[in-house]
């Protein structure tokens, strides 16, 4: 039976309709606190639609999705996109999504696989977000005194570890999201929104706060932090935006459609972000000193507001 719920994502109301919606929400976790009673959605995502994979479109990106061992294809034909997931074993179509540039509706096929359902909804929101100057950023988002810090890094570089050190070391610090928060430019001001897609720490918060700074992490044998130049900052931030969408740069599809492309919009969002906030590179050990050094650099306070239990130690 088709069920429908409205979610508030990045400040926009998204109506999701799907067979077995409640079952998917339960299985995914995290969606409950984003539900809203707003009955006038800006965007609609509809599962159970007759969407069949294209055979002759331009392949923008192909990648492997570990969670359910599948192959993902992102394609463009004229002004329309498709995103399809196929199982590694048996090459079975798990889900197929279709979206026309500028539309407020994303159509998705029927889907029985929970990870495919969850990821296709993420992908739908990535595409729709372009219209609202909003993008997911692969990062951990930490909030202190109403301002967000985004920690970036490839998987395994210690985003979650460093975030945990902030929560343990710095009083009043909260985790907003541990994997995929939204970054939205509102009149040129970067705002970070929690999302139902979080990572190792399943923190689901619908709240939003302005962005204070971005920190790219790398593991090192010492702690050191440096503010990056504009070009370095671009290089630090760009890989953390949806890589498949970044491949839609109008190069291979120059003759098709309106000429609009996702990369131009994402790059404009990066540009506005870099104009508004600093980006740092933190080389760090997994220790409290790394969190304190980073905090003091970003917030300019010589006295780290440490948790009382920790204060006694020094």
């Amino acid at each position: 039976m088709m069920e429908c719920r409205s979610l508030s994502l990045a400040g926009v109301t998204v109506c999701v309709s799907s067979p077995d919606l409640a079952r998917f929400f339960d299985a995914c976790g995290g969606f409950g606190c984003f539900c809203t009673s707003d009955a006038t959605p800006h965007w609609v995502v509809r599962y159970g639609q007759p969407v069949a994979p294209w055979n002759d479109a331009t392949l923008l990106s192909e990648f492997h999705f570990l969670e359910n061992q599948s192959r993902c294809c992102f394609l463009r034909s004229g002004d329309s996109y498709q995103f399809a997931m196929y199982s590694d074993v048996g090459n079975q179509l798990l889900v197929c999504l279709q979206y026309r540039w500028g539309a407020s509706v994303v159509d998705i096929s029927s889907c029985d696989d929970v990870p495919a359902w969850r990821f296709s909804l993420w992908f739908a929101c990535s595409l729709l977000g372009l219209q609202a100057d909003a993008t997911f950023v692969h990062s951990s988002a930490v909030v202190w005194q109403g301002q967000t810090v985004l920690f970036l890094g490839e998987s395994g570089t210690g985003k979650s570890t460093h975030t945990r050190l902030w929560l343990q070391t710095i009083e009043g610090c909260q985790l907003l999201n541990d994997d995929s928060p939204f970054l939205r430019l509102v009149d040129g001001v970067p705002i970070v929104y929690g999302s139902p897609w979080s990572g190792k720490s399943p923190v689901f918060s619908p709240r939003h706060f302005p962005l204070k700074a971005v920190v790219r992490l790398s593991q090192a044998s010492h702690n050191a932090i440096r503010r990056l130049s504009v070009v370095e900052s671009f290089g630090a931030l760009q890989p953390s935006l949806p890589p498949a969408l970044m491949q839609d740069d109008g190069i291979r599809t120059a003759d098709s459609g309106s000429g609009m492309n996702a990369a131009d919009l994402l790059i404009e969002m990066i540009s506005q972000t870099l104009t508004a906030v600093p980006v740092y590179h933190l080389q760090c050990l997994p220790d409290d000193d790394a969190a304190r050094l980073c905090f003091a650099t970003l917030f300019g306070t010589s006295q780290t507001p440490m948790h009382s239990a920790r204060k006694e130690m020094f």
Partner: protein
Amino acid sequence: MKINPKFKVRRVADEDIVLVQGRNPGDMTTVIALNETSLFLWHNLEGRDFEQHDVAELLLQRFEVDDDRAHKDAQAWILQLKENGILI
């Protein structure tokens, strides 16, 4: 030679950059920053077939440099673009 039309100069936070994206997720993206001279050359040569002497000629017209210096700078500029796969 020619600047590959798939590359374009983008204005990002008051810098002029050219992005050289990898084709696969996980590939490195190279970000090339253009200084004022490089941007001048790019805008004047974009879409045209050109040789080293055309680049040197532009430098001589725009800047107070001697012939030898203009050719050396032209050669260096072309080499940098070639190394990043920007020329065809």
